[in-house]
C-alpha cells in the first residue's frame, strides 16, 4: 500500500510539474510545428517551388524534358508574359494541361502572372521579348511555306512524310499532338541541346536563318498537313 501511495504522489507531482512547465514553455517545446515556410508569391523561391512541382516534369532544360525547356533562355527571347499566362491558365494544344480556375486548376490569374514574370527573371537571361519576331503564331501562306520547308528544313526532317535524320515533322500523328502555337515556338526557339536550330540560326540555303515571314509560312504549311479529325488518321 505504501508503495502505491508514494507512486501516487510522485505521479501527481510530475503531472503538476509537467503542466506548469508546458504552460510556461509552450512556445519553446520541441513538438511545436515550425511556422510553415511558404515562400511569398512572386519571390524567386516561390517560382522555383511552383515550377519544380507543377511544370518541370515537362519543361526542364537542355536535353531533359519532353516539352519546350522553360529553364533555358531560348524560349524567352520571343515569348511574351501574356502568352505564358494564357498557356498556363487555358492550357495549349492536347498535351499542355490547363492550370487555371476554369479548368479546376490550382492557379489564379495573379499567380499565373507572378509565375510568368518570375520564370523570365530566373531564366530569361535579362532580355526583353525580341521585336524581330512575334512570340505568338502569325498567319502565313502554306504554298510558300512548302518551298521554305523543302529548301530549309527537308535536309534534316526529310521531304513530306519521309522523316530524315531529325525525324518527321509532317507525320499526321505528330501534327495531331502539337498546336500551331507549339509549332511556332519549335521553329522560333529551336532546341539547341538536341540540334534543332532557332529561326535566325544558319540553315541549309538560309545562311542567316529565316525571315520572320518565312516562319509564318512554314508553320502554315505544317498546319495545313494536320488531319482535322481522328478518322483521317486511319490508313
Amino acid at each position, binding site marked *: 500500500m505504501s508503495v*502505491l501511495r508514494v*507512486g*501516487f504522489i510522485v*505521479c501527481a507531482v510530475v*503531472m503538476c510539474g*509537467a*503542466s506548469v512547465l*508546458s504552460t510556461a514553455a*509552450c512556445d519553446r*517545446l*520541441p*513538438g*511545436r*510545428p515550425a*511556422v*510553415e515556410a511558404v515562400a511569398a508569391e512572386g519571390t524567386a523561391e*516561390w517560382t522555383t*517551388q*511552383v515550377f519544380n*512541382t*507543377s*511544370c518541370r*516534369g515537362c*519543361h*526542364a532544360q537542355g*536535353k*531533359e*524534358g*519532353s516539352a519546350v525547356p522553360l529553364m533555358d533562355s531560348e524560349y524567352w527571347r520571343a515569348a511574351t508574359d501574356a502568352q505564358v499566362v494564357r498557356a498556363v491558365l487555358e492550357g495549349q494544344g492536347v*498535351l499542355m*494541361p490547363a*492550370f487555371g480556375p476554369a479548368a479546376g486548376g*490550382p*492557379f489564379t490569374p495573379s499567380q499565373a502572372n507572378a509565375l510568368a514574370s518570375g520564370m523570365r527573371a530566373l531564366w530569361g537571361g535579362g532580355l526583353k521579348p525580341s521585336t524581330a519576331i512575334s512570340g505568338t503564331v502569325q498567319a502565313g501562306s502554306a504554298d510558300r511555306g512548302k518551298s521554305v520547308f523543302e529548301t530549309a528544313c527537308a*535536309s*534534316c526532317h*526529310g521531304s513530306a*512524310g*519521309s*522523316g*530524315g*535524320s*531529325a*525525324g*518527321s*515533322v509532317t*507525320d*499526321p*500523328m*505528330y501534327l*495531331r*499532338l502539337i498546336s500551331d502555337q507549339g509549332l511556332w515556338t519549335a521553329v522560333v526557339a529551336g532546341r539547341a*541541346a*538536341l*540540334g534543332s536550330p532557332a529561326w535566325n540560326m*544558319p540553315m*541549309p540555303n538560309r545562311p542567316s536563318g529565316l525571315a520572320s515571314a518565312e516562319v509564318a509560312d512554314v508553320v502554315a504549311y505544317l498546319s495545313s498537313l494536320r488531319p482535322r479529325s481522328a478518322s483521317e*488518321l*486511319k*490508313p
Partner: protein
Amino acid sequence: MNQTSPSRLIGAAVDWVEARTGAIAFIAPLLTHHVPRNAKWWYVFGSATLMFFTIQIVTGVCLATLYAPSAAEAWESLRYIDEQVPFGWMLRALHGWSSNAMVVMMAIHMLQVFLHASYKFPRELNWVTGVFLLFTVLALAFTGQVMRWDQDAYWGLGIGASIADRIPVFGNQVRGLLLGGPIIGGETLSRFFALHVFVLPGAAIGLVGLHLALIMKNGISEMPKPGETVEPATYRERYEKRMEKDGVPFYPDAAQRDMVFCGACLVLLVVLAAVYGPFGPGGQPDPTLIDTNPRPDYPFLWIFGAVSLLPPASETAVMLVAPLVGVLVLVAVPFLSNAGERAPSRRPGMVLIASLAVMAIAALTWEGKTSPWSPVMDGWSALPTPGHFIDGRTPLQVQGANVFQFAQCRNCHSLDGLGGERGPALDAIATRMTPDQLMRQIQQGDGNMPAFGRNLDSAQMTALVSFLTTLRPDFEAPAMIPGAQLPLPVRSMPGEVTTPVAAGTR
C-alpha cells in the same frame, strides 16, 4: 452560529440534491463494490483506455470549436490552430497522440482479456461490446485522419473508395454513400466530419456505458488459476462468495492502482505531444507546397502493408472478405468456448494464436512503413524525362514522352530511378515487350494498372508506344551533322506502330 457554518451549508445542499436524485446512492456502490484482491496491475489497461477516450472527447470538443469543416478551409484552419491559437498545436498533438495511445491501450486490454479468458461465462457480452468498441474507435481514427484533409487523407479515402468499388453489384452506390458523390470532394469532408464528431462518438459513448454496466453486473473476473474452471451453473454463486470473503472495495484499493497507471500514461502522453508535436497536416493538394509520400496513420499501417504484399489478383477477395471475417471471428470468440479452463498455461493454442496475431500485425506495420505502395502524386508534373531518353528521338517520340507525363504514367513507373514504384521501372521496357504488347498493356491495363484505352486517342497511343519502344539501353542517337543531307527515309508509314528497331533508327 453552528447552524450556518459552511460545512453545514454544503451538507444541506448535498442532502437536498441527494433527496431528489439519488445520485450518491447510485454512485456509492460503483465505488465500493468488491473486486478480487489478486487483480493487481493486470487490470489497469481498461481504465487507461477509458482515460484516453475522455481526453479525446475533451480535446475533440475544443478542436471542433476551431476547425473549419469545409474543403476549401480545413487545411488552412489546421495551420491556423498550429500557428496562431495559443496552445492550439498542443491541443492537436494531444488529440492525435491520445488517439494512437487509445488504440494501443485497447489492443493490450483485449490481449490481456483474451489471454486470461475473461470473456468466458458470464462475460461474453462484455467481450462483444468491447469488439464493437474497437471497431468504432478504429472508425474514429480513420475519419479523424480524413479531417486533416491532406495527402494522407486522400490516400485513406482512395483506399476506402476502392474497397467500396469492389463490392459486387452495389459498389457504385456504396462509394457514393461514402464519398457523398462519385469523387472525393467537399461533400466527402462534410460527411466524414458528421461521422467523426456526432455519429461515431455517440456510438462510442453508448457502447462504453454498456460495457461499464456489464462490468458492474458481472463483476471483475478473478485472476485465472490452473485447474479452477468456469462452470456456468455454479460460477455466479462461487464468485459472490469469494468476493464477500476475499474481495477488496474498488475504491480506494484497486482505483489507486488505476490512477497511478493512468497518471503515468498521462505524463507519457504530454511528453510525446510536447516532443513530437501534432500529426500533419501533410502536403495539401497545392502546387506551392512540396508533396509528401502519403501514408495512413499508425493504426492502419498494417493494412497498407498487407495490401502492398498481396498478389494483385487476390486483392478484391482479401480487401472485401478479410474485414468481415475479422469481425465475425472476434465476435465469435466467447461463443466458441465459454466454460472450462482460463489459465494461459492450460490453453497453449490460444496463446499461440495471440502471439501469431501480434507478430503478424507488427511485421505488416513495418512493411507498411517501408513499402513503396503509394504512387508519387506529382511525378507527372515534377519529374522530367531524362535527357538520354529524349536525345535522338523523333518529334513524334518526344510527343510520346509528353503523353507519358500527361497520362501520369510517371506517378507509378520510374525512369532513371525517379518516379512511382507502384509498377515496374520502364527504363528498358523495349527489351521486354513488343509494340503490340505495349499497346495492349496500356489499352487494357492489368492488375493494378488502370486501363487507358478510352483516355488516349490513336495519335497519343501511337506516340506513346513509339516512345516506349526507344526505352532500351542500346538505343543510340544517330550522329547529328547539322545540315547534312542524309538519304534516310527509315520511318514506317504513319499510323503504323513501328517495330522497336525501326523506331530507334530514323
